[in-house]
């Protein structure tokens, strides 16, 4: 009887654990889908808050904070009315939480670069000195941590695309980066369904614009 009791206990605890992680998995998947389809600033705000709630509840998962920061960053880039500094400050705070859980993470390092870009865009001429170096150094860190992260090259290409040719930017410089990025997307391993996978379509679209 004892064995039966023990095996049941075991079965049940696995069941609970499964339910727990299933809730996380499902919650994340649902919100990632929402983030992918987000269009209006409100969509981004809502989904960012949802990710943050998951992060606060889980306490040991970096991905919710990562996505919450990402939602804020995308909001900053897409909503012309957004106060970029506020949004980027919020992203920075979330990035710090993610990093505390998962230090030395290439994806998080890349987010830092993106948030710094947002700060810089508030007043590029006056701020590039302060934030430009963060944009670059964070991107370098991201490469050091995972040289095969396709999103880094997409982001680097995106930045070069917007940089005038006189400063070493332009389509010609950006194109090989988008190509490299796309090649890496092809070979990228799917760690899990909730691991960062965004950017392939955008890289493809940007490559088209380089032609």
């Amino acid at each position, binding site marked *: *009887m004892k064995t039966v*009791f023990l095996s*049941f*206990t075991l079965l*049940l605890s696995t069941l*609970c654990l499964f*339910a727990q992680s299933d*809730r996380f998995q499902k*919650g994340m998947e649902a919100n990632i889908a929402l983030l992918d389809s987000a269009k209006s600033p*409100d969509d981004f*705000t*809502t989904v960012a*808050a*949802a990710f*943050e*709630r*998951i992060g*606060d*509840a889980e306490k040991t998962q970096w991905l919710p904070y990562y996505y919450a920061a990402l939602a804020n960053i995308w909001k900053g880039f897409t909503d012309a009315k957004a106060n970029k*500094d*506020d949004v980027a*400050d*919020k992203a920075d705070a979330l990035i710090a939480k993610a990093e505390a859980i998962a230090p030395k993470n290439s994806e998080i390092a890349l987010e830092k670069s993106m948030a710094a*870009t947002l700060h*810089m*865009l*508030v*007043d*590029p*001429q*006056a*701020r*590039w*000195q*302060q934030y*430009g*170096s963060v*944009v*670059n150094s964070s*991107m370098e860190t991201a490469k050091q941590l995972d040289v095969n992260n396709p999103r880094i090259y997409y982001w680097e290409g995106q*930045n*070069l*695309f*917007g*940089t*005038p040719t*006189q*400063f*070493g*930017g332009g389509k010609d410089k950006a194109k090989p980066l988008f190509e490299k990025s796309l090649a890496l997307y092809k070979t990228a391993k799917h760690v899990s369904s909730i691991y960062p996978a965004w950017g392939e379509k955008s890289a493809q679209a940007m490559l088209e614009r380089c032609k």
Partner: protein
Amino acid sequence: MVYKINYITFVLKSKLMKKLLFFLTIISISNFLVAQVRISGSVRDNRNRPVYGVSISVKDSYDGSTSDSSGNFSFRTTEKGEQTISVTSIGFNSFEQKVTLATESITLSIVLKEKLDELKAVMVTAGTFEAGDKKRAATVLSTLDIYTTGGANADISATVKTLPGAQQVGEQEGLFVRGGAGYETKQFIDGTLVNNPYFTSTPDIASRGRFSPALFKGTVFSTGGYSALYGQALSSALIMESIDLPDQTAANASISPIFLGAGYQELAKDKKSSWGVNYGYTNLVAYFKVVKQTPDYFKMPQFHSGDANFRIKTKRGGFIKYYTTFAAGKLGLRRGDIDSSYIKDAFGIDNINWYNNVSYKENLGKGWKLNSGLSYSTNLDDLTNQLQDENNQPKTFINAPWMSDKNFVLKSRQDLSQIRAVFEKRLKGISTVRFGSEYMFAYNKNTYNGLTAVLKDHYNAAFAETDIYLTNNVAAKLGTRVEYSSIIDKASIAPRLSLAYKTGKDAQVSLAYGTFYQKPENMQLLQTTNLGYTKAIHYIVNYQKMNQYYTFRIEAFYKKYEDLVKTAPVIDNSGEGYAKGIEVFLRDKKTIKNLDYWVSYSYLDTKRDYLNYPGKLKPNFAADHTVSLVTKRWVTKINTGFNFTYSYATGRPYYNFQKNNGTGKYIVADEGKTMDFHNLGFSMNYVRQVKSAYAVVVASVTNVLNSSQVYGYNYSYNGLRKEAITPPAKQFFFVGLFLSWGVDRTQDVINGNL
């Protein structure tokens, strides 16, 4: 899930399983009973306005929502029992409420309190303009603006002159603010007073400031009513805060026909310390060959300047910073003497200046901060004036005292040592109290034609100030300063008070009041030390509306001068005066695409009786109306910025005072008004990358329209002849190439995203 568990329990119905069943029931209740409770409500701020984008959640669960634009929210939760609802939003204090979740819906009315935030809180802007990169209410210019103001040639004072309150005075350096003379404005670096902020000047020619704008992360230009932390400036203070650490290791070089410079700045790998050195050499020989100057330069202007710095970040986030600059320069020029048809004045300067500043700021814990500084500077001037004949040979006059006085040799040394400490304690919210003291020792030695006089002053000051924030919308600053100067053996108490009130979104009103004292000038103290402080009382009211793209300010002031130094008929403190006026500032980065511009207008009504003035007169540095229009346009396609600055001022008065030998009093023998002043300055900067270097080509010219500029008139001793005071050349041209390496600016999204 519920069914599944129930099924299992059914199958396992047996006595032996009772224990297990009990266990299962517990689990099913706590984990698998899914019934949802609806939580809804609204979020408002303490003024009953809906708050949008607030995150509402059941703490430690996934369940929650964000408020919509009417502040409403609604969501369902599966959580049960005692739970905490957590409400968070940027700019507001977080809010938590305990609720018991059963089956009924819950409606919440949440009132959020605005978070007191230094960046959002109202700030006293009366009499304050800030240039820097901080997001603050008084910040109207960025550091970059100083570099890109047409005609200002990257000189801090020249840029500040485009703001309201400052006069377009071109015959002397210094900022002439609101009816105040140039020496009534003092400059401070990291809290300590700068004794010789400008290069030593020749009579009737203004000189540049010694300090590069790149040294500072913020510059506050106070046109009055400034903080009790500063003193000894009757009219205005220019408060500069040095940068902490450079962004990157970099080398730089500058090449221009008049200037060569090179520098290196290293940021340690751990980004906790840095050091740097710069050297520059200026020589105007080639320039003066091409651009003819009115005076005859017999010693071509030449300057060497070097500076060095180190900065260390402390463990607690404080900084130790050291900056030193050394400059040596000379020049000599000849101009026709006003009292003779053939005699010339040959004026020469040899100057050596050494400035040192160490500052230490530290977080002491428990809300305490320390800001301290030490500075030492020495300035050696060797000034000579020699009367020369048509062959440039020395000439002496024995029977004409008005001529013989013009042959002189003046050696002057000015030393200033200073120590200062300010403690700051954060009170409740963001209210703060600051107090501290400073001590200065000034040593001045003048040897005039062999006669030496020494002035020594021990100056002590203690001050306290508090910033009180009642809410983000109401702030008050109260301060007092007590000063003692040994050379005049007098103490003074200077109270300061300012208030700010936010009247609406982006709009605020502020008021400032203050009493300011200043020691008499050295020239006067050399005659007698039996003098008191000169005194000014300021009253300022200001309205400002500002957002990301626009700044609009209007300010009115009244200033009363008392105890000004009179030098005739006797030297004493019987002078007085007033200044009042209205100033407007508008900056607009948005209305005209790709054009950023600002306009300043100042109206000034001032009179004073001081020095040898026969009575209350409008001083010769005061214009009634002054206007500046600064425009900046960046053309992305060609990576070039075009900057124009147009300054206009109505004519200024000039006088010829003649001494009545009987009474010792002066009378106005002649007076007039100069022609209006016009100056259109232009600069362009072209930026591009050349290999690993980032290059900026700057070209600029002052007085593009070649307007005649008259700053005033000099009179012959008998008053029969007058001569206009004009710039040494109508225009000043500059072309330079600035290179820097190491700062990787390729990612610079500067323009692609504009």
